Every structure is written in structure tokens, then in C-alpha cells.
């Protein structure tokens, strides 16, 4: 996993890291490994984008584990936005970028609740404001 960003540390770049995780990589992981990878990234201040999202059971576990890790003044949870499942196999942007025409197209954006604010969402667009604080 790449380094987290820290504006106070001259050795790390000033910015917000975005991890785009392919469906292929997620397929090779067990449910709790996926959740751990997502939450480790979010704890580091990263925005995690999943090409194929999570199953309902995994979403339920993600909420449960997130709740167990919330701590005053340190971590107050996640923001998560997901496109609805699409019947169009190759319609996702990541699917086209990665050449994966078999995508289930359930792109999911997850970030730290204190850094990500959704400005707009519809069936074709998620617009998010990400702060560095």
C-alpha cells in the first residue's frame, strides 16, 4: 500500500491519495480481507474506489467493523457512495479504462467521513469534495 499523505511531513507528498482497486484484485480476497484493505486505506486518509463494490453481506460487515473502530478525535467513520448495479456490462468508466468488459459495474467510493463530502449523486455521476484536513 502506498504511503499516506501528510501536509506536515516534508517527506510525504501534499495531497490526497486515491486507491482504485480492480474487481480482479478484490476477487482474490476473503470478505474480511477486503474490509481490512478498505478500512486500512481510509484510516490512512485515502479515498478507496472499488471497481465492483461489495456484496450486501460484505457491506453489512463493513458497517459493523467501521463502528467498532470509531474513536473520538481520531476516526469518526466513513462516507460511502455506490452506483446502482447496472445491467450494462461494459458501461463503467473503470471497466472501460481497465479493459474489463465483464464488470458488474457497481463502482463504490469510500473515504474518511471527516474528509469526503458528497456534493451530488445520480445514476451516472458521483461528485465528491475531498478536503485534506
Amino acid at each position, binding site marked *: 500500500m502506498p504511503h499516506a499523505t501528510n501536509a506536515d511531513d516534508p517527506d510525504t507528498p501534499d495531497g490526497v491519495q486515491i486507491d482504485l482497486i480492480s474487481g480482479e484484485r478484490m476477487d482474490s480476497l476473503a470478505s474480511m480481507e477486503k474490509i481490512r484493505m478498505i478500512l486500512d486505506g481510509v484510516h490512512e486518509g485515502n479515498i478507496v474506489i472499488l471497481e465492483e463494490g461489495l*456484496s*450486501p*453481506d460484505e*457491506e*453489512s*460487515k463493513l*458497517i*459493523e*467493523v*467501521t*463502528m*467498532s473502530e*470509531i474513536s*473520538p478525535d481520531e476516526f*469518526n*467513520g*466513513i*462516507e*460511502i*457512495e*455506490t452506483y*446502482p448495479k447496472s445491467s450494462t456490462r461494459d458501461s463503467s468508466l473503470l471497466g472501460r479504462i481497465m479493459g474489463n468488459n465483464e464488470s458488474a459495474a457497481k463502482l463504490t467510493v469510500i473515504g474518511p*467521513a*471527516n474528509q469526503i463530502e458528497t456534493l451530488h449523486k445520480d445514476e451516472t455521476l458521483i461528485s465528491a469534495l475531498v478536503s485534506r484536513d
Partner: protein
Amino acid sequence: MGLFTELKTSISRVTDRLFTDEEPKRIGIYGPPNAGKTTLANRIARDWTGDAIGAESHIPHETRRARRKEDVQIEREGKSVTIDIVDTPGVTTKVDYEEFTDEMEEDDAIRRSREATEGVAEAMHWLREDVDGVIYVLDSAEDPITQVNTMLIGIIESRDLPVLIFANKIDLEDSSVKRIEDAFPQHKTVPLSAKEGENMDEVYEKIAEYFG
């Protein structure tokens, strides 16, 4: 009532229970914070058992532990169902204790947020393991298309649990039941005001129909 009659009635109740009743269905009341879940749970419990379940408040996460009211027998239109009502904390993906500091001291706000997170985690676990049906409560004056609502309905559907959507707070000026029906057209939406007791006849009719 004579001793013999009392004994006969008592034996009859026991045999009825042994031979005709199934275990009560555990019906979880789920939804976002401040949708009116506890107000509804209290309304149902008071109407059918005379007791309330828990405290109600305008402050989010007043319910921080799932609370159960057992053996609530509901009868409507010749249908009858016995349920255990499980009132759960409002589901969310984030809890910030500073949201409560306007209403209480910081220590109390921190304690409240910790209890809330434990309660939500518990409610999610129960949803996967321990409920037979779901009453999903939404504030009809709010936009129902949120990520949490979409995720929760998806989780409930994936478990093939019977679900009724209750569009609460129809007494509010901004209420729109149609907005909820349009958001989740695959499920039955029942309008109500748990606070004012509006449309509770249909609420009980649908509970008996869906969970009986």
C-alpha cells in the same frame, strides 16, 4: 372465576401454546437515525401490551442498544401474529461525538457516541443472524435515497427477509409518501404518523399480513 375454571383456562393456554403457536417472529425495526423507530416501537407495544419499550428523543442515537419487547400479539382482519419487536439504533456509517456537544457535556457526548457505535454494530450483526423480518422506518419528510438506506434495503433483500417500509411522520408539512414509494417500488410502503397515531389500523393489518 372459580378455581376449576381458572385451572382449565390455564391448562388451555399452555396446551394452545404447545400445540398451535409457533415461536414468535423476531421483527427488527431498522432505519436511519431520527426516523421515529422508537416512537413506532412504543406505539405498537403500548397498543398491544400496555407497556413502552424505550425513551424517545429528538437527539440522534437516543436508542443506543437494541431493545426487545416479547410476545406482542397483533390481530387484524382475522389474521393474527405474535412478534418480538426489536427496536434497533439508527444505522449510519459515521458517528461524530461533536454532533452532541450542543446538547450535553463533552464526556456525555463521547459516551453517547461510543454506545451508539456499539449499538449499530450489534444491529448489523443481528440483521445477518437473528431477525425473521424487518420493518424499515423512514422519515417521509426527508430524501429516502441515501447510501445507508439503499445499502440496508439491499442487505435485507439479499437475506430474503420479508420487509415493510413505513413512511413515518406524515403529519409533517414536507412529508411525501410518494417520494418513498418511488425510491423503493419493489416493497410495500405504509404511510403513518407514529407520534400522532395516524393510519395505525393499516400498519397493524400489514404487520399481520406480512409477518403472520
